[in-house]
């Protein structure tokens, strides 16, 4: 099969406009007879389900949590980008497009990214209309801040809880449609299989996580909005339940997986404190607006942070990247932290951490505040108190969270941070319409591969999730369903449903009957260690080859020695987890294959063999300017298809933030 990205012809800035003006429509009476299944209720899923419900489609939503409002979009802290140019600092649709393409290290499609930048402004309008309480200035207008990899202030935020507020907005819109009868919601349900009829996605098999029963659902189309797969690393900033299962089942039914090796390691997370660690906690990128990152100039310096004098500190990001300083993109900041720690300059008990220091910001804000309040010659203590007040208003909840987890007061001592797995740019391959290569199957938000190339910029995940759900799929879905209006709802006793359900129940029985000795958790941890050590922040050919063999062996062991307590037909979280880990054990191998194939460094994918003299990522545009789209061909067998990336407007160069 050849990959057709379906990017509309014409100049970049008119592609989406032309598409919207010419795409096919479904009339309201017909929409009432079209069923749409939405898997996942985060920003992408909730916004899509609400919008499609408003339009009159019959929507069913599914989430494994107890309510749609719990989806992990809720944990996004820092903000959402939009090319509003409210700050009059030179922002524009083109600049947001350009920053995103460059930030992604020239591995994303121009057409998709331009559309994303174009609809970004509508998202802010929509959210404000829904009552999302964004931060405001005293004049009553919206406030902005900066994020990594850009030189304008285009990030809208609600303290350190932007994802929560946006998700609640989308959730409320969704609940309104539930009340109106346009959406039926199925919580504590997990998709277990995709049902295909005549080559099209026509439904799902879901497991009711409370009763353990398998249930069948028909849809004219299925939208996967199931998030990313960062939990393949065991430790990540993802929620405990975040998983790849829905996307992976679709992949095994024929949907191509795009750029699986592109994972984002976020530079500022609270370091691992011991073997008991179950997840990692992010400290928002917004903290790099005001915080300064440093390590001691002396190797193995064991003095306390506050005892190290100014001249003995190495603000290595400011030193290496004067133009962007502490606000370099995530991949660059993460690698720089790793480089310092590997070279023996790390801090804290584990030496696997660097400092994120607020003392100079506190002093700066304190002085400004004293001026504002007309305090003449304020003493150091007053300045400090006033400054802490300002920082508290901006970042209070993050500082509080840090203190709860570490027991240290970040107003007094610098935070210790280290990079952690955060986001996956890779995902199901989709065309411009967000449709996978399986007709009727769509992927939105983090679940698709489309907009962030090899590295996502901060505050762009929320933007993409909502762009896909509110403003893209409502058009593109209609364009395809217009041809499906004569298809009557297919009864779920159709043989394809029978067969899919049997597949799921056989698999569950097989898992339960292994009755081995080792817990699911333990296998997950072991997989995570392989992935982090060999397919993490830095990768090399030999390590990846080893990892592939190790994962295969581990998978074999899992299927012969895992122990799952409890029964099938009941609430059984161990069984839920076993299914997810079984899929991670397959995905991990594909990620390593993809990383091994890509003999270059770009964005978050850093192959040690390919770096510039000063340790920056070295792309090989002549050989790897493509999306790798992997087709599942059977156990451990994959075929790669290439989608060439044509840059018509931007000229790819060596990315520089110096």
């Amino acid at each position: 099969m050849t990959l057709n990205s379906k990017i509309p012809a014409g100049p970049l800035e008119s592609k989406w406009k032309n598409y919207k003006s010419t795409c096919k429509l479904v009339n309201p009476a017909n929409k009432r007879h079209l069923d749409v299944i939405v898997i996942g209720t985060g920003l992408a899923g909730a916004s899509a389900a609400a919008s499609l419900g408003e339009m009159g489609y019959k929507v069913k939503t599914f989430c494994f949590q107890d309510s749609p409002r719990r989806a992990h979009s809720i944990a996004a802290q820092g903000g959402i980008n939009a090319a509003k140019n409210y700050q009059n600092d030179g922002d524009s649709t083109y600049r947001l497009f350009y920053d995103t393409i460059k930030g992604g290290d020239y591995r994303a499609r121009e057409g998709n990214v331009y559309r994303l930048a174009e609809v970004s402004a509508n998202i802010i309008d929509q959210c404000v209309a829904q009552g999302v309480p964004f931060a405001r200035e005293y004049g009553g207008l919206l406030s902005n801040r900066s994020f990594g990899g850009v030189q304008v202030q285009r990030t809208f935020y609600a303290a350190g809880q932007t994802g929560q507020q946006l998700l609640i907005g989308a959730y409320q819109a969704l609940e309104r449609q539930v009340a109106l009868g346009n959406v039926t919601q199925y919580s504590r349900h997990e998709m277990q299989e995709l049902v295909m009829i005549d080559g099209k996605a026509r439904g799902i098999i879901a497991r009711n996580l409370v009763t353990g029963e398998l249930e069948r659902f028909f849809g004219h189309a299925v939208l996967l909005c199931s998030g990313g797969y960062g939990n393949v690393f065991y430790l990540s900033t993802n929620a405990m339940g975040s998983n790849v299962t829905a996307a992976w089942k679709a992949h095994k039914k024929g949907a191509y997986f795009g750029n699986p090796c592109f994972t984002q390691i976020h530079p500022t997370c609270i370091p691992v404190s011991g073997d008991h660690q179950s997840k990692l906690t992010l400290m928002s990128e917004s903290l790099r607006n005001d915080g300064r990152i440093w390590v001691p100039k002396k190797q193995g310096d064991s003095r306390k942070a506050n005892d190290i004098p100014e001249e003995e500190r190495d603000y290595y990001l400011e030193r290496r990247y004067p133009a962007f300083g502490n606000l370099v993109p995530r991949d660059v900041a993460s690698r720089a932290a790793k480089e310092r720690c590997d070279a023996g300059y790390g801090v804290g008990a584990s030496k696997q951490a660097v400092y994120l220091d607020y003392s100079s910001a506190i002093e700066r804000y304190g002085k400004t505040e004293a001026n504002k309040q007309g305090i003449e010659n304020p003493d150091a203590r007053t300045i400090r108190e006033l400054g802490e007040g300002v920082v508290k208003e901006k970042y209070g909840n993050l500082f509080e969270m840090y203190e709860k987890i570490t027991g240290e007061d970040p107003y007094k001592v610098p935070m210790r941070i280290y990079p952690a797995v955060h986001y996956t740019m890779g995902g199901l391959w989709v065309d411009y319409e967000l449709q996978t290569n399986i007709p009727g199957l769509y992927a939105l938000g983090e679940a698709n591969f489309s907009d962030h190339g090899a590295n996502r910029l901060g505050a762009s995940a929320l933007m993409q999730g909502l762009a896909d759900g509110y403003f893209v799929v409502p058009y593109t879905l209609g364009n395809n369903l217009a041809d499906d209006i004569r298809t009557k709802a297919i009864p779920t006793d159709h043989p394809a449903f029978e067969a899919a359900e049997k597949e799921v129940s056989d698999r569950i029985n097989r898992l339960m009957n292994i009755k081995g000795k080792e817990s699911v958790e333990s296998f997950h941890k072991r997989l995570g260690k392989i992935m982090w050590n060999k397919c993490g922040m830095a990768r090399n050919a030999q390590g990846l080859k080893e990892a592939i063999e190790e994962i295969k062996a581990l998978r074999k062991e899992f299927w012969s020695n895992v122990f799952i307590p409890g029964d099938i037909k009941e609430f059984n979280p161990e069984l839920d987890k076993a299914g997810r880990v079984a899929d991670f054990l397959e995905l991990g191998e594909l990620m390593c294959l993809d990383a091994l194939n890509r003999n270059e460094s770009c964005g978050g994918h850093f192959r040690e063999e390919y770096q510039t003299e000063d340790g920056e990522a070295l792309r090989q545009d002549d050989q790897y300017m493509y999306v790798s789209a992997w087709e599942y061909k059977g156990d451990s067998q994959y075929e790669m298809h290439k989608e060439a990336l044509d840059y018509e407007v931007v000229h790819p160069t060596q990315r520089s933030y110096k």
Partner: protein
Amino acid sequence: MNLTLKVWKQKNKNEKGHFETYQVKDISSEMSFLEMFDVLNEQLVAEGKEPIAFDHDCREGICGMCSMHINGRAHGPWHHTTTCQLHMREYKNGDTIVVEPWRANSFPVIKDLVVDRTSFDRIIEAGGYISVNTGNAVDANALPIEKQKADEAFAAAACIGCGACVAACPNASAMLFVSAKVSHLALLPQGDPERKTRAVNMIQQMDKEGFGSCTNIGACEAECPKGISLENIARLNREYIGAVFSGSGEGA
């Protein structure tokens, strides 16, 4: 440290529950409370026993999924803290900790420490939104909102819907939850057109779900992990009474 845990076990909503006693050893003070439960569950699995079911997801204090009643307090002893953010440095060697699910008729137990909170979804369905379809919005800055009002609305909107307010209340009232949503939307000009029907409909749904009445005890505010203020309940009462007396608050 070594600890004794007395944990509520209940097979499903139809069967009676009981406390079971467990011992855990070598718990590090760096662990979160849920990581201590992970240790216990791994221990149970190793012994071939069924682990304890508990709800949790983000483990960052924001999703609202975790919900343990610890030594008689919703989310345990730390102020403004969810169960997942409570850390073991709070406890010392030899302590006994009693862990129960949220107790409320409107939150039936599903299994062990897991309860059904779908009643909260239904309360939101009754009116916890602004009726605006996608694509109808004006420019975001066309509507300036006083910073103080926006901040107040945000403080109310910070509710994570965990249900601790209900669990803490002797009447199992959901007034803090309902009032947080009504306040969030009533404080903003966008929420104004529907404010009356919203207050009335949400209250009606709350009653229908069987939540108790508010008698101004204040346990909800004290135990709320997000510090949602009692002032919201006062505002909800004003909104509700205003709506009922103006006659325009007929349930839609």
